[in-house]
Structure formats: C-alpha cells, structure tokens
C-alpha cells in the first residue's frame, strides 16, 4: 500500500550511512542496488538462524546503522517473515524486553552492551528475557560474552566496513558472503574489498577489527 505518490526519479544514492573504524566514523553512501544485493545475503543468515515464514525477527540497532540493517529488514520479507525494531540503547532496553514478551520473536539480532546495561537497570535477567527466543545474536563479541556469562548461548553480528558478518549461536567463526566480498588480513587487522559492484568501493578497506580468515567466507576474531 503506497500512501503517496513518489518522485519518479529516485536519487542514485539510497542513503548516506556510515562505517565505524575504531573511533573514526566514515560516511558511506549506498545505492538501492547495494541494499537489494545485501538483502540476499541477509536472507541466508536469517534462514540459517532458524527464522521461518510467518515468524518474526526483532532487530535491535541504531538508525545510523541503516546501511547494515536495511538488508536484514528486507530479508525478513524475503523469508516470508515480519520484523520489528528497537533501539540498541540503554534506555530502549525496556522496548526489547517488552517486544520479546509481546511479539514472541523467533530471532533477536543486535543485543549490545548498552542493551544489556539497560537490562541491569531494569533488573532483568537476559536468560529470562530471551528464554522464548530460538536464536539470539549479539552485536559485538563483548555483548556475546556477557550473554554467555548470563547463560544465553548467542551468536555474534559485526559490521565489518560495509559488510555484515554473523556467527550463529554456538559457532566461533563469523560468516560472510565470499562471492561478494573478499576479506584479507594485514598485521592482524581485517581488510575488506568488494567483489560485487558497490556505489562506494572498498579496496582493502581497513576495518580496525582484529581477526583472521581461516578460509574464504569465515572469520575468526
């Protein structure tokens, strides 16, 4: 249902997001074709996390992460599922807890340290909050470790330059799509290069993330 007429010639740049390299923030324009292509990758992630048709994934993120999150949102539709959203902030942790209780998502992706701190504020135990969820994916290795300490076996989602990499719950290594991206390492730092066309190219782009590539398509942090 389109509510309003749209300008017939949409802008070449779908949106200006960002990639985070250590403390540095790099503006990152992407095209709609970039988003569409990454949606295919994200759909594979969601399926393999166990999201099925008519189910729901709760995505916990920030608007500034839109270039990484929009493919996940659209991928939910590709899978035939719905998505819901909460901010990955300490304050908005109440929303994550509330939506898990009300909507009973199959998959929750993006729990970060701030959300876990928010659970502490609310005196909520992550194991109790996420008990009904089939797959929980943390944002970053630190949050994954905190969830593990709380008894939640969670996967890990990291944004590596402009690409998404996901480790499934119980797995040590992150996955990425090696047909679209090449990941190398130099002095222990991961570098990314786009193999598929992208509006903003990455040519051995320094990610600021330490890790290694045991085999194409896999990353060990």
């Amino acid at each position: 249902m389109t509510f309003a007429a749209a300008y017939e010639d949409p802008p070449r740049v779908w949106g200006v997001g960002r990639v985070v390299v250590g403390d540095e923030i790099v503006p990152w324009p992407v095209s709609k074709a970039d988003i569409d292509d990454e949606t295919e990758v994200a759909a594979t992630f969601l399926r393999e996390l166990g999201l099925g048709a008519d189910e729901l994934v709760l995505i916990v993120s920030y608007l500034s992460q839109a270039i990484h999150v929009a493919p996940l949102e659209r991928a939910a539709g590709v899978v035939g599922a719905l998505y819901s959203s909460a901010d990955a902030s300490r304050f908005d942790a109440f929303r994550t807890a509330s939506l898990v209780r009300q909507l009973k998502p199959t998959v929750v992706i993006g729990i970060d340290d701030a959300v876990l701190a928010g659970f502490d504020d609310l005196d909520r135990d992550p194991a109790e909050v996420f008990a009904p969820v089939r797959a929980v994916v943390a944002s970053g290795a630190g949050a994954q470790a905190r969830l593990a300490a709380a008894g939640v076996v969670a996967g890990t989602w990291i944004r590596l330059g402009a690409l998404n990499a996901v480790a499934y719950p119980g797995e040590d290594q992150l996955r990425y799509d090696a047909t679209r991206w090449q990941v190398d390492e130099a002095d222990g730092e991961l570098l990314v290069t786009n193999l598929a066309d992208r509006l903003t190219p990455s040519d051995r782009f320094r990610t600021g993330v330490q890790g290694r590539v045991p085999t194409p398509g896999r990353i060990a942090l």
Partner: protein
Amino acid sequence: MSLDPARRYFSPEIEQMSRADIDSQRDEKLLGDLIPWAYKRSGLIRETWDAAGVSPADVTSMNDFHEKVPFIDKDAIRSYRDRHDDPYGGLLCLDPADPTMKGIFSAIFSTSGTTGDPTPAPFAGRGPSMLVREFWELGARPGDHFLHCLFTFRGPSIHDTIRGIGATPVFVDHQPSDIEQLLRFSRDFRPTGWYTLSGPLIMMIEETATRLGIDLQDAFSSYRGVVFAGEPIGPRARARVEGWGLELFIQTSLGDVGAATECREHDGCHMWEDTAYIESLDPEGTTPVGDGIRGELVSTTLIDKVAPLLRYRSDDLVRVTREVCACGRTHGRVHTLGRKGDEIIVVGVSVLPGDVWGAVESIDETNGLFQMIRPSREVDTLRLRVGYATEGPGGLPALRVRIEDAVEESVGIRPEIDLVEREVLLRQGPPHKIPRVTRA
C-alpha cells in the same frame, strides 16, 4: 510524477481540494469501505459495536456515524489485548500468514512507550507516506540531502518518504551520543530538510557546539526547514533554535492515525483530511465543539486497513479549525493544547504542563526540564519536579525561589518545587521527550 522544484505544493490536487470534495471522499472511504472492512476483521471494533448494538448497516451517513458509532480509547485496546492475549489489541485486520499479504504486511513497529508498555503497531506500508507534502513544504527538493534523525522503532517510512521527494536521507541517531556526527554531517552534506528535532536534542546540540567551539549558524546554514516533534517547545528553546537560523515546523500526533505538521504560515498543524477524519468533541461528553474551540481530538483513519482506528478518543486537548489556511491549503488545522489526562485542578484552577512550560524554561539552569506531580486530578498544591544543569547564583535555595516566582507569575499559583539533577529526568524518557506528568 514529474516535479518542478518551483511548484508550491507537492500534491496540489489534494492539498487544495475543495471542502465538498474532502467531505465526499471521506464519506466514500469511511462509509463505503473502512467501516465494513473493520467491523468484519477487527475483533475490538466488532466487540465494541456489538456491545453498542450497532452494525455497519446502521451507519449510512455521517449523521449516523456521529450518533451511533461507539468510541474506543487506549484503555479499550489494552483491555482487549490483556483479555485475548492479542498484542495488537484486537485491531489487526490482516492475517500475517495470508499469502496475498506477503511483502505488504512487513513489520511491526511500536509507540514510544513514554507512559507505559510500547504498543505494537502493525505496518503494511510500502513507499513514501503523506509526509512528502510536509517535506516539500520545508523546502527540500529533488537532489538535496535530508537529515533523517530518528529512532529505529518508527520504521522505514520516513526514509522512503525522503526518497519520495527525490532527496537522499543522511542517517543520524536521535541520541546525545550522535550530536557530533549530526553537526559534522550538517556541514559536510549541506542537507536542506531535517526530521526531527526535539527539546532534549536542542539542549545537547547547544552543549556540544559550545564544547567544540562550533558556530551553529554556520553549521545549520543549509537547512530550509526542520520538523520539531515529540513534545511541545517552549518560547525560550524556540528562540534559541531560531537564533541558529533554523525555521521550525511543529509536528503533532493526530490521535495515533497519523501526524499533523505546520506549514510556512505556522498557524496550526495541517491534518490531512484525505487520510483521517478528525472530530473535536466536548472532553467530558460526546457533543462537538465549535471551530477553534477547545475540545478532545477524536480520530478515525481513512486509509489504514491494517489496524484501523474508528472514533478513537485520543485524550489530546486541541483546537481544530477548518478555515482555509493562508498558505492556500484547504485541509483543517489542529493546535495541540495538552492531554486531558495531564490536567491538574489546583484549588479549582486548571493547569496543564504547557501552562508552566515557559515559566520553568525561563530559568536558564533548568533547560525547561520539569514534571508535574499528579497524584490525582484535583489537588491542593501544584508540585513540580524540576531538573537543573547548574545551581546558578545563590545555590539551590535561590534557584528554587526563582522558579517559584516565575511559575506563580505565569499561572497565579505558587508551586512547591522539588529540584533534581537533570539527568534524573532525562533518564525517564526516550531521547526525544520525558514524561511531563507523573503520579509521584
């Protein structure tokens, strides 16, 4: 559609539609489509109408609508939700498993949750919303950058809408932690539109700019218009923002069926009557109040077939006018006065947060951060909890007296003031607002 950047309206055929056409389209959408659709599919609507002994066949005119259609409100939705273990409160009219809905019914967003559990809001949108009209009115045009400063839980319709006018969204978090990027992206990408700004964000922008030595007039010089939303803005905050060279366009909620936003005349927020039917009724009864008279906003969607609200009593106190605006648009306008549930009667005198806003805000140390303590509707003493950033000359006792004096001068009642560090209040709300009324 092809758009001449010089054209005055985004959708002139709608925005300047005659009153007769607005009414005729409303009747067709509401009586011929929405009512039978909602009654058949919405558990809450059917339950409410059955209890009132009304069926769609009884409602064949707007007179019937006004006389017979029962009201619903937030309590009714919550009650249905709890009784039926239905997160959508009996409003959902689509079956997520229906294969014809794939790709249309895509997501579930939620209300801000400022006063309680966030309410899930099913979303079946695709593409831009009617806010294209407002974004065009701000002055944003095809090829421009447009600052999208919001949260995730409102969904993707805003960035679709920005692209809907041919502009490119620049994503920034509506968070204190992202202010530096907001300033940087404003200077680097020179956006012309900005959605949204809020009171807490104004405070944080000012502090960040001072800390970093940034000239805000320069940083914001590309903007033609900024939508301010979340809660009312006080005169002092408005003056501060206008001093940065920004033109503010106030946006208000339209009883959970949409939003209404000011035009360049800044004389009320335009409610798009091709999308919603708005009544203004006696807050304590069911009779309509006159044009421009204070009433309670009662909203009925004309376009939402996913979770339609029919005669939803919003609790919002408003003045509604359907006089044609000086901007040339024919759709009505709403001035928001406050919330009925926020009103405090202090020894017979009505006080709303908006009545004391300017007075509290006039004291620099407060940044306008306050809550009214409302243990019951009628009280003997007006009690305010006020946040402070600094104690100011004379310390807290002197600050308290200055606030008491300002409020007394404004509303004629001397309040009791409970001073707290401002972070205590900021922690109580999402980044764009705090609850302005609290029980204790």
